[in-house]
């Protein structure tokens, strides 16, 4: 099932959404007002059929996918720049569904600099494919620091390398020296990486 079907299957009224999707395709500048309104017009609950997604996430991502490609170049950055936390998260979730662009990397780096777990998690999802390795490793380590479940990290084992193992090993050592706990998923990742080497 595609994103539109997954979303509308759980909406009782799709008039606002359908009108908004048609509008942004014809008049891309309208997205500036429709994008923030998606939460209060469609809802914010967690979608039962799409684990990890909320109604407003899905509605906003759909709006971005309906923007003409040339409009994306001008609209995407300001939508993220002036977005509230929910809007920023939706931009991050939309990136893997949009034509690749040089604009993605600065957006992802901004999200990783925040201290908002929702944004850091979204930046380490499928969108993280646009991140350079050094920033991605720091992102994964930050996720461990913040107590984020590593299940949020896309392609974790495929992308994890010896450098990440060294960094994670250092963190685990510091935590042990301080008598502090380390999340199980982080120690499990470290063990998997160490086994690869041996």
């Amino acid at each position, binding site marked *: 099932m595609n994103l539109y079907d997954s979303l509308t299957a759980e909406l009782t009224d799709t008039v606002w959404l359908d009108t908004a999707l048609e509008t942004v395709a014809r008049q891309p500048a309208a997205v*500036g*007002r429709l994008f*923030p*309104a998606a*939460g*209060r017009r469609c809802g*914010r609950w967690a979608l039962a059929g799409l684990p990890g997604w909320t109604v407003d996430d899905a509605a906003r991502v759909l709006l971005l996918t309906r923007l003409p490609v040339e409009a994306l170049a001008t609209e995407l950055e300001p939508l993220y720049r*002036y977005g*509230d*936390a*929910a*809007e*920023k998260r939706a931009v991050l979730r939309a990136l893997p569904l949009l034509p690749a662009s040089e604009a993605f990397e600065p957006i992802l780096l901004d999200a990783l600099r*925040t*201290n*908002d*777990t*929702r944004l850091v998690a979204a930046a380490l999802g499928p969108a993280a494919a646009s991140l350079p390795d050094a920033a991605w490793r720091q992102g994964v380590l930050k996720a461990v620091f913040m107590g984020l479940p590593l299940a949020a990290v896309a392609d974790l084992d495929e992308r994890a390398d010896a450098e990440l193992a060294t960094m994670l090993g250092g963190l685990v050592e510091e935590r042990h020296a301080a008598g502090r706990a380390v999340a199980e998923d982080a120690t499990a990742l470290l063990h998997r990486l160490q086994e690869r080497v041996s």
Partner: protein
Amino acid sequence: MRIFDPHIHMTSRTTDDYERMAAAGVRALVEPAFWLGQPRTSVGSFTDYFDSLVGWEPFRASQFGIRHHCTIALNPKEANDPRCREVLQVLPRYLEKDGVVAVGEIGYDSMTPEEDEVFAAQLALAVEHDLPAMVHTPHRDKARGTDRTIAVVRESGIDPGRVVVDHLNEVTVARVAESGCWMGFSIYPDTKMTPSRMVAILQEHGLDRVLVNSAADWGRSDPLLTLRTGEAMLAAGFTDDDVDRVLWRNPVEFYGQSKRLDVSDLLDVDATFEGNSILRGGS
């Protein structure tokens, strides 16, 4: 006691304050955009501040189970600085955000022609974006400033029931009551208004259209003075229901006019606390 603080500047408060507020019963708040103590010199420092009001602060509040909303505006003091005037151009973007429940703080500081213009322009923005307005009254020349505020509100065409005029005292309350606007009171340790003086005002004017806030910021202030006012009300013979009306239902009613206030699940939690499961569908 469930508390909705309708005016508090959390940007200036510590995380310890959030913890104390949550323990005292504060479950929702509105943070109006205002002056930060240090004058700003560019639009960029306003947009970063607004971003924090719709991004970082709500996240910080949520760590303590507190629902955070805000109001956005160019404040009267900085409306006088030509370098900040361009802030008016970026307001429409922010006035569309889910967490923004009013245009504010607007109004007067020194009652200059610049303040007149910016006040009127932002009341028009409130009408255009279908939002209530949150109006600050000046600390100097307050009585005449309040009269002028009411006159500008009347001229703007906004429904006075969608406007709160804040920082009132014994001298200014009656004229705002007559205007049809909501009456805001900022309870401070020893300046604007105190819990005992607030109780006397409630005894005289009743509970209609009254909002009680701590307006806690970077100055000498106390985020728990809402709770202290509730306690003073009970000590003076007001009922639990009266306190709930002033400290919870009134701010929900006022800011609910934005249609963006989101306290539904908080109400739900309260219903189970009181042993009443009706809001949970009878389950």
